[in-house]
């Protein structure tokens, strides 16, 4: 078995993990398959240069993130930005602007088991965000893009981006309150 074959197989083994990440961001299976294949191609081509530097997966994920942003740019006219979630604030706040349910302090999970379970809950909650909110939220918080960069990539206004980010954060807060903090030990 040549070194190239072994390397190729090792990279191919990353495909499921990469697909998970790409699907989270793009929320479109076909686009996700495309970016993962592109990222793996680049990785195979450049594998010889990479040899032995940082962790391989981290390196390939770095390539994937660039491909994800390229994909947003290429598909920006097809990325739906309509958000069905416009009743959210009325569900969270009374008509006088007070919280319907008084916020309670969240206790950060301490043990590594609790921490892992918390991250699983967070995963569920991010996946449950309406797609326009989920995309933009992860561009901001996972890909570390600024609002200005997000607006440029998706060709949307600052106001539009602000509304979606606000709703995403409110909705995540509601989801975590319900699914984690209400029943955590």
């Amino acid at each position: 078995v040549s070194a190239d074959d072994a390397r190729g197989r090792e990279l191919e083994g990353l495909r499921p993990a990469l697909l998970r990440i790409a699907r989270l961001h793009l929320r479109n299976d076909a686009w996700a398959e495309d970016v993962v294949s592109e990222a793996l191609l680049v990785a195979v081509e450049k594998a010889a240069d990479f040899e032995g530097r940082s962790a391989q997966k981290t390196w390939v994920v770095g390539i994937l993130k660039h491909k994800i942003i390229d994909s947003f740019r290429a598909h920006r006219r097809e990325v739906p930005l309509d958000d069905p979630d416009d009743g959210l604030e009325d569900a969270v706040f009374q008509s006088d602007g007070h919280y319907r349910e008084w916020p309670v302090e969240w206790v950060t999970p301490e043990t590594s088991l609790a921490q892992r379970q918390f991250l699983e809950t967070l995963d569920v909650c991010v996946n449950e965000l309406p797609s326009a909110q989920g995309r933009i939220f992860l561009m901001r918080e996972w890909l570390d893009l600024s609002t200005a960069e997000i607006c440029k990539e998706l060709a949307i206004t600052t106001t539009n981006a602000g509304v979606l980010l606000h709703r995403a954060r409110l909705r995540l807060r509601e989801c975590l309150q319900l699914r984690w903090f209400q029943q955590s030990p």
Partner: protein
Amino acid sequence: MKIWPNLSCRDAAHLITENLDRPLSFAERGALRLHLAICSACPIVIRQMQQIRDGIRAWRDANES
């Protein structure tokens, strides 16, 4: 959003989340500070929003490595 004479928690929530994405203006900072001085709910929400951000970072790192 009206920031004068005082914010509701609903208005404050906008400033709290927007502050995660951009620096607030002088007027916005002042209005938020005034609100936080008399509200016991919103400081909790500020900490929760930070906990969400920290959680997302940890979740991202777990997925990327």
